[in-house]
């Protein structure tokens, strides 16, 4: 009897232990309705109070949810919002407050596609999620903007109270990228991303005899002179660019669609990049590291010995390690010049997620950060970004009192203005990002001599069709 009691006790203990184990997933699900009920009531009860506060804070809102969820992949937008959106208070690294609304940042780095995976997971069911969990605002990059814009997971900005007149000053290309196939504008950006050639002033003085942008431009005015200069740089111990991929955007941005009628295309312009880069790699004038890797960013410091980078304003101020005292950027040792060819690279767009319960706040953020000239001029002055406001930028470009410290006080805005006018991004597809990554990766094998061009091309096709099984080549 005693034995029986003991064994039944033991087995009860075991089975309950098992159930407890299950409990970690099952129990919350079972308890959820109970726990949610008060939460659901709470907003109803507090709603009038919140409304009152909201009207006080001048954010007109009867539709405001209590939590504004923002999805992004780095700190850039957060610092813009913190510094330039009136009424934003930072609470901690991932939380903030706008009036009575809690701002929750979900920052997922883009590495390994993690950011998009996250969006893919939450956006389709966003409208059905609990009010406080819904994504309200998310950011996209140019390379994959269409993937989200051309679906109903993003709201047209017109629904948020942003009119054509509001965005009239923005550069056309920034609107083209986020316009869906029915012609609706579905996102806005505060920045324009025309690119320039960013050169190391020290190297320019040493090798070219002058660091004056016009003189340097003479030495890089087209690709032939660029190559000739690369030889001089190599002889003086400098790499022309840190990696072959640095020049990729200059070519790809001027090329045709990467996919046409479901077939992968390698444009002649891109082939030119391959040929030129192979030549430069073989001559030791550039490296084969990946963008964003250590070998690439080594050139941000004097001992990295890199002559130039290609990039837009965000690269200059946000990526070139200006905070680090040892960097060239900190010492203001970079200069900017137009370079062999105009191009654009990247950019961040603000999109409203379908299902947002903070539509008017999202609309207000968009309006303030991307359509309000005063705020945008502040962004230029504080962060040296190139903002998406044509008249304002043209006015600033003529302002001799403005200069970018990273560029040694040079005012490069005129170059950006001229570049931004010419950008045409109507060639974007939803495949651009995967295409670009696979192409650079495959060509690296060719540059390093591990494969012939044809073999590398095969590797590229394999890699792209893995990402997009519906494509042919």
């Amino acid at each position, binding site marked *: 009897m005693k034995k029986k009691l003991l064994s039944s006790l033991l087995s009860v203990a*075991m089975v309950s232990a098992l159930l407890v184990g299950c409990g970690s997933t099952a129990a919350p699900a079972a308890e959820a309705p109970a726990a949610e009920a008060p939460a659901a009531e709470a907003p109803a009860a507090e709603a009038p109070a919140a409304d009152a506060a909201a009207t006080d804070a001048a954010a007109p809102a009867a539709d405001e949810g209590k939590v504004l969820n923002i999805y992004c992949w780095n700190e850039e937008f957060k610092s813009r919002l913190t510094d330039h959106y009136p009424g934003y208070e930072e609470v901690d690294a991932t939380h903030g407050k706008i009036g009575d609304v809690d701002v929750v940042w979900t920052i997922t780095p883009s590495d390994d596609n993690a950011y998009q995976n996250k969006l893919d997971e939450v956006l389709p069911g966003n409208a059905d999620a609990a009010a406080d969990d819904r994504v309200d605002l998310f950011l996209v990059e140019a390379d994959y903007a269409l993937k989200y814009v051309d679906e109903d997971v993003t709201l047209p900005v017109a629904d948020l109270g942003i009119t054509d007149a509001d965005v009239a000053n923005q550069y056309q290309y920034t609107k083209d990228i986020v316009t869906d196939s029915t012609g609706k504008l579905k996102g806005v950006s505060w920045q324009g991303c025309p690119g320039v050639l960013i050169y190391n002033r020290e190297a320019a003085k040493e090798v070219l005899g002058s660091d004056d942008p016009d003189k340097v431009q003479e030495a890089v005015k087209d690709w032939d002179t660029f190559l000739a200069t690369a030889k001089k740089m190599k002889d003086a111990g400098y790499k022309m660019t840190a990696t072959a991929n640095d020049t990729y955007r200059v070519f790809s941005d001027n090329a045709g669609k990467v996919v046409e009628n479901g077939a992968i295309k390698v444009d002649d312009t891109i082939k030119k990049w391959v040929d030129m880069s192979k030549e430069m790699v073989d001559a030791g004038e550039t490296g*084969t590291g990946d963008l964003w890797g250590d070998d690439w960013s080594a050139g941000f410091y004097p001992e990295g010995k890199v002559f130039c980078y290609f990039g837009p304003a965000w690269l200059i101020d946000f990526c070139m390690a200006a905070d680090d005292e040892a960097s060239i950027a900190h010492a203001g040792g970079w200069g900017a010049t137009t370079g062999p060819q105009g191009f654009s690279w990247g950019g961040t767009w603000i999109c409203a997620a379908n299902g947002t319960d903070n539509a008017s706040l999202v609309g207000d953020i968009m309006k303030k950060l991307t359509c309000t000239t005063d705020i945008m001029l502040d962004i230029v002055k504080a962060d040296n970004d190139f903002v998406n406001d044509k008249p304002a930028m043209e006015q600033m470009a003529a302002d001799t009192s403005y200069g970018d410290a990273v560029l040694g006080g040079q005012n490069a805005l005129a170059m950006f203005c001229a570049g931004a006018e010419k950008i045409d991004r109507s060639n974007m597809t939803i495949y651009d990002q995967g295409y670009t990554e696979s192409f650079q990766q495959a060509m690296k094998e060719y540059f390093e001599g591990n494969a012939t061009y044809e073999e590398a091309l095969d590797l590229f096709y394999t890699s792209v069709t893995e990402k997009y*099984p519906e494509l042919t080549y």
Partner: protein
Amino acid sequence: MATEKKKTSQVVKYNKWGYIFLIPFVVVYLIFQMIPLISTIYNSFFENYMSGLKQIGPTWVGLQNYITIFQNGDVPKYFGNTMVMWIAGFIPQIVLSLLLAAWFADTRLRVKASGFFKTVIYMPNLIMASAFAMLFFTLFSETGPINSLLIQMGMIDTPYKFLSHVVSARSLVAFMNCLMWFGNTTILLMAGMMGIDNALFEAAQVDGATSTQVFFRITLPLLRPILLFVMITSLIGGLQMFDVPQILTNGEGTPMRQSMTMIMYLNKHLFSKNYGMAGAMSVFLFIITGILSLIVFKFSTSESND
């Protein structure tokens, strides 16, 4: 008669507890193993992936996914890569482990502080494989410390791209796997050696056998079942090799995908959430591992019958 009947029912009653105690395993197995396994097999017969945010399929395609992964040469190639890297890591690993285990288990040698050494050699296994791979990635990068060391010693002029050459990339993976697992293998082999009857060693000693003879004539033959176990489990682990090469080569299996393993290839289908192709690949892996496990099972059961 009556007592006998009572006895059987008593046995049945006690058997019941056995089944009850098995419930946790069965439940966990069903939820986390059986259901995913069956759904993987089921999914492998469909075309089913995401293009952007659009779902393509699921459309029944029969064995098409299997035909594709074999026909375009993917599976044979990545299977080959995986095996080469496993063998290159396993051979030094087993040699090293045998040697160390023999030293540690040898009662005559009386290695001092053997507990300390056993802990130290097991250490690499405690580090996360990904952290370990990240460390090596940094060490052997173009601008990394190994390259600057070699340049300063005057052995090379320009940085050597370790991860852009087949031999060095594969060797690095093999070396890391060896380093991570030799401690584990040593412990296993040592356990096996301690299980050998000491009388046999003493008898050999009395007969004047050298330690080499003892090792090859007594230790090795008697260690065969453990050796086989170590080999097959390592092979199964090797087939699933992923984290080290994935992180070391940034998921690309450079150069020219020659260090890409089967699981890394499987991982490539994550981008498009390609359940069909990834399912087919997983089923193939499952079959191979299944066969290998059967061999272990058969061998270990027949051993106990001897």
